[in-house]
């Protein structure tokens, strides 16, 4: 393993710095904007009717995807905040709430409210503690940050298929 820079810090310093870097990254991971388009840009310039439209051949609208993201982020936060595992849904379909265009504003607001709850946990010192059976708090946060990213990639694709991309402020290109 090559070391890119001279590094005379002690192992404890290095360890602490890596841990802090990870903790600081978690909230950013939920928001994108680093290695892929940020969540606010991705949801911007989208009216309720477009958000609720399902492109031909696809199973979900932007609204479906966002309410699904919310479902799992809420499930994750309940586990972390209650400090114990919660039951898994019986079927994947249970995690795709029935929504209509009238729900768009509410679902979008809930997404940001859930992110604010995530922020409170990213810097906690017990990220190494198991909380969901063997899964630690840190693992759970990382898993669902990237579950969010996975479906935000799909939100961009759905918008492209609807001819509604890039948003007014531009996509993630340079």
């Amino acid at each position, binding site marked *: 393993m090559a070391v890119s820079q001279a590094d005379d810090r002690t192992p404890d310093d290095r360890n602490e710095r*890596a841990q802090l870097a*990870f903790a600081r990254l978690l909230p950013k991971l939920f928001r994108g904007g680093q290695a892929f388009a940020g969540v606010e840009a991705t949801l911007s310039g989208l009216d309720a009717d477009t958000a609720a439209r399902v492109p031909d051949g696809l199973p979900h609208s932007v609204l479906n995807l966002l309410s699904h993201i919310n479902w799992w982020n809420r499930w994750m936060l309940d586990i972390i905040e209650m400090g114990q595992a919660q039951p898994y849904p019986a079927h994947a379909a249970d995690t795709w709430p029935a929504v209509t265009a009238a729900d768009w504003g509410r679902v979008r607001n809930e997404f940001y409210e859930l992110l604010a709850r995530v922020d409170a946990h990213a810097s906690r010192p017990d*990220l190494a503690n198991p909380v969901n059976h063997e899964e630690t708090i840190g693992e759970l946060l990382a*898993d669902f940050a990237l579950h969010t990213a996975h479906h935000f990639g799909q939100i961009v*694709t759905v918008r492209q298929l609807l001819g509604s991309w890039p948003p007014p402020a531009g996509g993630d290109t340079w």
Partner: protein
Amino acid sequence: MVSEGQVAEVFGKAVGNLFRGGPANVSWERALERLEASDAGRVPGLLPHSAAQIVAHVQFWQAYLLEGIAGNDPATPEHAAGGWPATGGGKGEGWEGGDWEDLKTSFLRDTGRLRGHARDPEVVQTLDREGRPYAVALTNFAGHNLYHLGQVVTVRQALGLWPPPGGGDTW
């Protein structure tokens, strides 16, 4: 303060596993299952990219990160387009040439390498050329991978090629 071993374990599990697709998503292996060259190069409807182009893009950045971790100094593209290698295929066309299987093989190999690096405390704590622990880049790249993994699924859905024979991520 938790011990170094604990940090490495948490980070390694949390981020390392995500390079395969992660427990909350379908795996890359499943997402690419039975996607033949003739379909991998097809660009559906209004979309800008085929599944093969997306995989080639993710592989470009995987190779970039691996170069950096190896202590080399890879050139950063001047524009985003520089991270989208020219590939065969296009609107209504299949993948041209026989390198789709090669691309998949090198892609999955490098995914495994990055997973290994994320689980190696020495690599995670090493500073990159911007002075940040590689934990940062590894985490960001894991996010980039999962973001585009979602798009490969959507492209396959738009082509009527989802779920794969082994099933999607449903129960």
